[in-house]
């Protein structure tokens, strides 16, 4: 359990809490190196560049500042469409979060990709993709390519071991809307989520990476201990 939480902490820290220097490194990246990352990681499903069309995944031209699931002629997962309607837009932070761990940002995504944990390779990849967007901004602080510095979540806080009983109490707030049966209509089911995905997702709402007014409000007052406890409780549920 301890080990798991350490890996979670690294993952959350990478997504949500880049230090200032790291943030700039991420923002720039090396597009040339990114082309190679793209060929290895993405090209079997996605096309980008002149004449690119939808394949297994949608083409990635003009991805920056585009609303999620916004190609009318591509069939997305319901989960990605839902987040698109809620306002998820592909800016640099969210592309990073999505590529690092797709399911942490969009739980029900159809993109079956394990995620790219390596920070440097990821920023190279994003820099490469940015070449194919309309107005790539080369000033790192400017939208849509800037990474806003986030509150630094210390590893100590992130390594907190969840209190299952507390999590059970906290989960009662969830069950007003999310059914214990796992029903997934109108409001998504949350039963059976891997602990790590749960923690990252809740932090993503808390940091407003994920759109949705209710969830942003719910997560706003969940501290690290509460999030860890909820994750531990849901992980301890036998489906």
């Amino acid at each position: 359990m301890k080990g798991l939480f350490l890996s979670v902490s690294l993952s959350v820290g990478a997504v949500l809490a880049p230090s200032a220097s790291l943030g700039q490194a991420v923002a720039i990246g090396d597009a040339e190196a990114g082309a190679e990352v793209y060929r290895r990681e993405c090209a079997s499903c996605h096309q980008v560049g002149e004449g690119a069309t939808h394949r297994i995944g949608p083409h990635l031209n003009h991805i920056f500042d585009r609303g999620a699931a916004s190609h009318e002629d591509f069939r997305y997962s319901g989960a990605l469409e839902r987040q698109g309607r809620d306002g998820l837009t592909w800016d640099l932070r969210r592309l990073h979060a999505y590529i690092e761990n797709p399911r942490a940002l969009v739980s029900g995504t159809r993109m079956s990709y394990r995620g790219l944990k390596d920070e440097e390779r990821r920023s190279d990849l994003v820099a490469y993709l940015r070449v194919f967007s309309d107005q790539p901004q080369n000033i790192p602080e400017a939208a849509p390519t800037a990474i806003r510095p986030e509150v630094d979540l210390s590893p100590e806080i992130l390594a907190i071991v969840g209190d299952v009983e507390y999590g059970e109490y906290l989960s009662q707030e969830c069950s007003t809307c999310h059914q214990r049966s796992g029903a997934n209509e109108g409001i998504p089911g949350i039963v059976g989520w891997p602990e790590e995905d749960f923690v990252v997702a809740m932090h993503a709402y808390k940091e407003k990476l994920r759109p949705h007014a209710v969830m942003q409000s719910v997560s706003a007052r969940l501290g690290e201990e509460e999030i860890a406890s909820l994750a531990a409780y849901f992980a301890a549920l036998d489906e």
Partner: protein
Amino acid sequence: MKLQRRTFLASVSAASAVMAAPAVMGQARPRVVVIGGGSGGGTVARYVAKDSDGAVDVTLIEPTKRYYTCYFSNLYLGGFWDYNALGHGYEGIAQAGVNVIHDWAIGVDRDARTVTLASGSSVPYDKLVVAPGIDFVDNAVAGWDITKQSMMPHAYKSGTQVQLLKNQIENMREGGTFCMVAPPNPYRCPPGPGERVSMVAHMLSQSNPTAKILIVDPKQNFSKQALFEEGWAKHYGGMITRIGPDFGGANVEVRPDSMEVVIDGQVESVDVCNVIPAQKAGKIAELAGLTNDAGWAPVTPSDMRSTMDENVFVLGDAAQQGAMPKSGFSANSQAKVVANVVRGELTGSRIFPARYSNTCWSLIATDDGVKVGASYEAGSEQIESVSSFISQTGEEADLRRQTYEESIGWYNGITADIFG
């Protein structure tokens, strides 16, 4: 569903565990009695029973055998929801181990700690939870009292009153006038009157498009006003007129026999009149001596405990707690706090800090849903809002449709949470 790893984690959490001796010693099973089987009472009864694994004797007193929710009853009016789908039985609550008694609670002896039932028997308790919802203030609207409810329905406690109102609207003459007398604050379901007007307008725009809607409102502003007014102009242009307090909306008399409404001295003939009077805590709260001069039952913000009696908790619409709106969602949220506290005091289980939340969805027209909500915490004097949100005017149709679909998901979620 079962929990594991409890023992492993217990050591981590021992510091915050409540180690106090249970309040009731030497007695086989402590007794919790809950009056009222709605969103608050149903939830607290089921949660205490299921989470205490039989260690607490839980009795729920509720006169009706089938509970019809107020929320979504407007959607039934608008033709978006089936009447039967508003109804919920008590089988699931009974299955959780609750002793469900279908009877009226007509008195509480707080010294003897017993609840008297209309059938004559009495039920003893160690902790009492009172969740009776609302009643109407006598003579709040001149000319109207509860005996006039068949001529001018309130339709504000769901059930047959809503069926009656729907029937009256359906049979209204062509080009007739539907009038709503809206309530002053505070009242159950703040966006309820606005949603009801929307649903009546939807219904009339299909079956009786020359009909008019007149709202007589004593309030300067109302919940989700900008969203409703935008929607009314967009979907039902010209059909709806609202008379606020500046034009006499607070000075109203109704004449049920002649179907007239007198607004600031001016007589209007109407065809259907929905009178939603000023409200107060359900009568049993008053009979139990738990209410104040305002007619509501004041409670401690951290645990919804009556300020009048440490062994009594008041939940939901009847409670005067501060910033939370009177809604089914609020009652359900408060019930979980009370269940945690009651169980802790009776069995020694851990008591966690109160957390409250609420979201209210409303439907304006087909696939045009909006929402408002907030998170709350216990302040020193009352429950306070800590973060809030509301749908925006001008939102895309796709988002509005999604919000409506979300509200259906919520309805199914909360009713499963309350009734099992």
